[in-house]
């Protein structure tokens, strides 16, 4: 790819990244961090490419290690984020606090 195209992509992605999280409520900081964490697990795509090109058994071992680690990051990240968000959703809003947890026992 030519460098200017790359630079364009990077600059636009930086702005999008800044924009999408700049107004996030502090209530959701933990899931947001966990979700962003899952997204960089997409390094799995890179790990698959290098594993698919590795000829030497040593290099293949290293590449497969990268695949395992990246999968853990990607899959684990999305699963754990979903688990957290499941607890945030689910309940209907706009009932007084006194209802607090008929469902908690």
């Amino acid at each position: 790819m030519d460098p200017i195209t790359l630079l364009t992509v990077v600059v636009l992605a930086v702005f999008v990244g800044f924009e999408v999280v700049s107004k996030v409520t502090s209530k959701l900081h933990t899931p947001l961090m966990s979700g962003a964490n899952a997204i960089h697990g997409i390094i799995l795509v890179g790990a698959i490419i290098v594993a698919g090109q590795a000829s030497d058994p040593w290099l293949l071992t290293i590449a497969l290690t990268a695949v395992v680690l990246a999968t853990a990051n990607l899959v684990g990240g999305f699963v754990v984020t979903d688990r957290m968000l499941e607890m945030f959703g689910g309940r209907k809003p706009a009932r007084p606090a006194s209802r607090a947890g008929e469902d908690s026992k």
Partner: protein
Amino acid sequence: MSVLGPGLTALFYLVAAVCFILALKGLSSPRTARRGNAIGAAGALVAVVTVFLSAKLENIPLIIAAIAVGSAVAVPVARRVQMTQMPQLVALFNGVGGGAAALVAVLELGHSEDPWVRLAVVFTMLVGAVSFAGSAVTVGKLQELISTRPLLFPGMPVVMAAVVLGAVAAGGIVVATGSVGWAVALMVLGLAAGLLLVLPVGGADVPIVISLLNAFTGLAVAASGIVLGNVLLLVAGTLVGASGTILTKVMASAMGRGVTGIMFGAFRGGSTAGSTVQSDRPVRSSSPEDVAVQLGYAQRVVIVPGYGLAVAQGQHTIAELAIALAARGVEVVFAIHPVAGRMPGHMNVLLAEANVPYEALKELEEANPEFPNTDVALIVGANDVVNPAAKSTPGAPIYGMPILEVAQAGQVVFLKRSMRPGFAGIENELLFDPKTTLLFGDAKDSLTRVLGAVKAL
């Protein structure tokens, strides 16, 4: 398999990138968050299927087996982890992602002739290794396998400087020659830098470091996109790097701290080196029964939960206490400081797990104006986030941090383990205020006893 041509491949990667943007966007609001996360996962699936269908790959059965192993390890852990241990898991996943990026880069070194691409290789390896080692230390601190106090040894700044200079030199050699031996040396130096960077960080600042290392891994993945000529990795990594940076800044300012102060504060001696000196000034200590009376006959109670509650795993007990009080007609809300818990926003997750309704959780800006109308502020396992020194004592380590102004409530009750100061290591004047009472003990024990007493009223 090369079923997909370059055009279609690029198109599917674009779809995946858009999914990731929508995922982050969705995560910024509670209503759309879960759907957003599902969209992100779908994008990841599209990207992984695309790479199998587009690139010429050998070893496909082994790769699929490796993916199966990674999933088989990660999914059960992610499903079973306790919500109190969430920060460790996030840090762990972040670390392995950084490690994967570093390994991918070192393997691509042989295919990289262009010095600019080699520079991207060097960057990915170094930052990935820093993120891996730094996250490992973070996990250790959060699990309390390593002391949560800043760890320093004499000459540490000199060692750090030597490691940084060594890494720059090794990186330069790799860019110039493409030497694999020097690349390995660079990774080792990166690991050392990660350790040295995070060991001196105090326990209270660890959450910020998780977020910062998350941004680091994002940047490493972005650079790996340049190495592999893969736009998806570039976009996804940059997105995470940028959003992680913003998130780190937002969190740091919620704590009234600068990011550089957190990372390098210990080197200058200005970190959160929590003092353990106990004060012997007199305080009014109380009994569970007295606290129960105070709470049970109040009209409005604001509960301020903190780190100590998370440690004692008292979130379910406090939710029950809120129900018991509400049943007596007491208005109960939770005031959540942005950095309460072991990770910013962590307390919201813990209370959500304990089924406390979302609308009973008030953020700092919502909670503060209501304290003058509050009869009792019940502070459970928190200290620094209610310490008036943040407003009144310029020069205090927490000066400038927004606090919950519990002093404006009619009465203040602290459930505390001991008189030990909080992480910031400064005394809380509020503890000695005439309208303050203290109930000492483990947060969960104290809450259980107060709950029993409230039910007996």
